């Protein structure tokens, strides 16, 4: 019974914390369900509770606001199923590397993204490869590794909606973001 008492008091506490979800049904009994006597016999017997734990809601609130950023493009686009930084984006990498190197305290996050085809977790890993490719390209230009973090959003944050090739090409990208 102790765990039920505990759950009961815990629920009282939570209920006091203005949670947005109502806490229904605190378990108060732990007897097994009563088997009815055979039909025809008087159906007595006290039924037991079928209580279950409620769910307390947590609200994250607002996103972290982004920091100030340098002028100029900060997005590198990739071919389907590719992690190669194409030569046409080298100028973006070079411009950003100069900005990062100018201040050793500057922190930059490379956010890798994919198009919407395939699984969420596998796309997260694919986006990570793209982010790490851009980090490597910055490293080759002398940017210190400890200033750059490569993370992935997989397919969770598409830049363009739609399943046509034009939209998907906009989504296969790595964004250089300052925090």
């Amino acid at each position, binding site marked *: 019974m102790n765990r039920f008492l505990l*759950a009961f008091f*815990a*629920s009282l506490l*939570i209920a006091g914390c203005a*949670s*947005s*979800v*109502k806490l*229904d*049904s605190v378990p108060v009994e732990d007897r*097994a*369900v*009563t*088997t*009815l006597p*055979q*039909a*025809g016999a008087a*159906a007595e*017997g*006290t*039924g*037991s*509770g*079928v*209580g*279950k*734990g*409620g*769910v*307390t*809601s*947590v*609200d*994250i*609130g607002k*996103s*972290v606001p982004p920091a100030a950023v340098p002028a100029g493009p900060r997005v590198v686009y990739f071919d389907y199923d590719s992690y190669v930084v194409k030569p046409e984006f080298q100028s973006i990498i070079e411009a950003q590397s100069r900005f990062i190197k100018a201040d050793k305290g500057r922190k930059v*996050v490379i*956010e890798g993204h994919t198009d919407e085809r*395939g*699984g*969420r*977790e*596998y796309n*997260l*890993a*694919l986006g*990570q*490869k793209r982010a*790490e490719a851009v980090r490597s390209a910055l490293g080759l230009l002398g940017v210190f590794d400890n200033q750059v*973090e*490569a*993370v*992935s*959003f*997989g397919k*969770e*944050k598409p830049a363009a909606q739609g399943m046509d090739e034009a939209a998907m090409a906009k989504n296969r990208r790595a964004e250089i973001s300052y*925090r």
Partner: protein
Amino acid sequence: MIFHQLYRPLEALRVFWLGLMLVTVAPVQAQFRVEVSGIGLNQLPIAVSAFRGEDSAPQKIAAIVQADLERSGQFRAVDSSGVALDELSRPDVTVWRQRGADSLVSGSVTRLADGRYDVRFRLWDVVRGQDLGGQSYAVTPADLRLAAHRIADFIYEKLTGDKGVFSTRIAYVTKAAQRYQLWVADADGENSQSALASPEPIISPAWSPNGSQLAYVSFESRKPVVYTHDVVTGKRRLIANFRGSNSAPAWSPDGRTLAVTLSRDGGSQLFAIDAAGGEPRRLAQSSGIDTEPAYSPDGKSIYFVSDRGGAPQIYKIPSLGGAAERVTFTGSYNISPAISPDGRWLAYISRVSGVFRLHVMELATGAVNAVSDTSADESPSFAPNSRLIVYATQQQGREVLMTTTLDGKIKARLSGQSGNIREPDWGPFQKQ
């Protein structure tokens, strides 16, 4: 005729849902609808008679029981109209045999003086004229649905020999506008309660083996980070927030360890972390992607996805680390492994001719079946009795959740009204 039998109860269900929406004053919750498609060969015909007194109760017990049984794929509902019964009645078996039923459920709902409801039922084998037993539950109005699910569990177990999963829970994520929410709902998708709301994506929820916690990936700090979350208290614990991406949490069957994918050392690689928190230890090493770990039910192996061979395939390794063994051999894109709790089946998503479909492999033989005809399936998860799979897919441009039998013959859609529904994970059996 078959279609009549199949659809009549569904019409009744729609009327029922409508009634439910009118009386529900709780905050907006995803209202789900069951759409059974397909016909199984060996479905048990069962009549679920309206429970005496349920018209004045907040939930229509018989309809919930019937929908549960139909969704399992093991039962076919037989018309039960026109006969008033309760758990004390001795049914006229010839009537039910003529209607084609093998079994009959009857019962009653009575409001008690303290505001609770007394729910009673009895199950009959009308072929043999045998009383198969009954139960009673005294529940709060909020637990009437749970009582109905427990009745369906009793019937399912009595008639199929397997444990029912109707009183278990599923977790899933909705996206509406730019709002992401993690929900805990009954296995029929009803009674959803919000566990987490965030302006940033939430993916990969995973129930702890005892059903008290969810592990998941949250992007609330603008990068993927792994948390565990006690669903009753709402208390969260940061499990993996290392440099780079942290994702794909999977519980070991003893609940002590989480396998995760970390990129802290470069590349997406598998690590194990104590569920109480701590330093990760590497499970495997590759120069490519290793992700989506899934423990086998005996805890001895970890299945995972790797592109070490050039394209994503499913492999397995000993859970303490060791040599990888390839598991999938057909196709060039096989991801999202889920192992059935009985250890017999591997569900995964395979890309075939450019579309992503749920597949099931019998592990003993390696025989593979495609079990869907949709094109954007994701995130399969087994019911705790290994008889159903819940997965995400798209229908008419919307993200929906489906359940399917392992042979793909019986599918039901769990479809909410607001936003896209995704990332399902089926929880364990609940302690009663």
